[in-house]
């Protein structure tokens, strides 16, 4: 690897990291604003124009608040919990292809931090690791509510990981590749050979299962049982305060951003958009528009996450488990079988 390559990669990593943090930050603002609109309210509008500076004010508040570590908490693990949560949330974005290649002079910039050929599995692994942050934090707090929240999170994540994995397997039968770059390339354009290229139109059921599991994995409503206030005070972060609490809340929004990006890449064509070949633009412009399109898709998914939050009430615990084990897993297996048959017949 040459020095310029390394510099480019480092810059790319920093940009991706910064973007995910900024988006997570403004997701908190968007969440409150969108919640307000759904409830015929105005939402935050005091800090700056339209309340745009609200996230900064919230951040400053988080930093300046008193940091409390309970006496009987397990000291180091209490700190490791939120750190791990935000770490696993951030590293997921490493394999997402943000756009096609950008050519500046003689250097070709690949808008993807790394293209490992098991990209999907990597994301899947990172997601499955995310539960450690919650579990460690919940256990280290030495609090019943925290522990119950942690246990709920663990069992929920394990249950939904299975159907998520199975829905991905059906997708892999269609794409035949584990690399996210290749999957994105396969969905080039919008229409090819008499059918849509985007995987959503090839795997509608798989997408449905995937998005339900994504909601469960990110602990978003209607699956936010780990932190449900009415039963568990604050759930796994009951004992947390100050920026450690901020890390947990932040991790949730970063997770939301990353899973939106994954859904957009896997099922909605990633950076591809209709008529991208017939516009007659140069490759660089197509790439730039592609990046914008990808982010538009991501924002649409984030909006959908919030839309669902203010529409569907929280599941009861037995309903959650019934849905996961008795509905989604059989559906996902049926989806694999059907996809396998169709793929074999078409070949």
């Amino acid at each position, binding site marked *: 690897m040459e020095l310029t390559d390394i510099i480019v990669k480092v810059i790319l990593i920093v940009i991706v990291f910064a973007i995910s943090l900024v988006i997570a930050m403004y997701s908190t603002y968007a969440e409150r604003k*969108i919640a307000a609109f759904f409830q015929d309210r*105005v939402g935050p509008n005091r800090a700056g124009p339209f309340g745009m500076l609200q996230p900064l004010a919230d951040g400053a508040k988080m930093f300046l608040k008193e940091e409390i570590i309970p006496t009987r908490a397990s000291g180091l693990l209490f700190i490791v919990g939120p750190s791990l949560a935000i770490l696993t949330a951030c590293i997921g974005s490493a394999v997402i292809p943000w756009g096609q290649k950008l050519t500046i002079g003689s250097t070709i910039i690949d808008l993807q931090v790394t293209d490992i050929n098991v990209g999907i599995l990597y994301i899947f692994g990172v997601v499955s690791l995310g539960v450690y942050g919650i579990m460690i934090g919940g256990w280290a707090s030495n609090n019943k509510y925290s522990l119950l929240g942690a246990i709920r999170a663990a069992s929920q994540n394990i249950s939904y990981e299975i159907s998520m994995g199975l829905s991905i397997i059906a997708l892999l039968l269609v794409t035949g590749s584990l690399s996210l770059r290749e999957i994105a390339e396969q969905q080039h354009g919008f229409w090819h050979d008499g059918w849509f290229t985007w995987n959503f139109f090839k795997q509608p059921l798989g997408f449905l299962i995937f998005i339900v599991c994504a909601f469960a994995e990110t602990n978003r409503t209607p699956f936010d049982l780990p932190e449900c206030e009415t039963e568990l005070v604050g759930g796994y972060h009951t004992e947390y305060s100050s920026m450690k609490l901020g890390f947990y809340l932040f991790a949730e929004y970063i997770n939301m951003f990353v899973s939106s990006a994954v859904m957009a890449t896997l099922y909605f064509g990633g950076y591809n958009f209709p008529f991208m070949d017939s516009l007659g633009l140069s490759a660089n412009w197509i790439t730039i528009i592609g990046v914008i399109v990808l982010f538009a898709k991501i924002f649409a998914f984030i909006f959908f996450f919030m*839309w669902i939050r*203010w529409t569907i009430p929280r599941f009861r615990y037995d309903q959650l488990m019934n849905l996961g084990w008795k509905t989604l897993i059989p559906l996902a297996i049926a989806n694999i079988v059907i996809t396998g048959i169709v793929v074999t017949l078409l070949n």
Partner: protein
Amino acid sequence: MESLSNKKKVLEVKPLNIWERAYLPAIFKGLAITMKHFFKKPVTIKYPEQKREFSENFRGMHSLKRDENGRERCTACGLCALSCPAEAITMTAAERQKGEENLYREEKYAAVYEINMLRCIFCGLCEEACPKEAIYLDGDIVPADYLRKDFIYGKDKLVEAPLNQ
């Protein structure tokens, strides 16, 4: 038992059919409803900038009235303090001196008149009790403040502005 009012309705709870059990149609219906609200105009009134119109019998901050010559009407009889269910009103009476006839209408007046706005429940009984028509709750909403002592309003805040100023 036979219902007397005949209003009783027996609801039949049917088991859900497969379409209903999939929940998806219901979810989409719900999404449509929330989306409808998304584009509705917010009902919020942004208070300090905008104000809702008060009704005619709105009871806000108290004001101690003056008569047509600009003299304070209050005679410090204490009926308002007596009638106050929250015991928010207190006063000290004083005798009118020579040369103060243009300031106070009656021979006795309130040298100190204090209302604790944290105690006041804005019931309006002081208004009803006053024989001199000296106190009315016709003001604005009592503003917020930082210290408890700042909510004890004295004559400086309560007495109406003099007539020709």
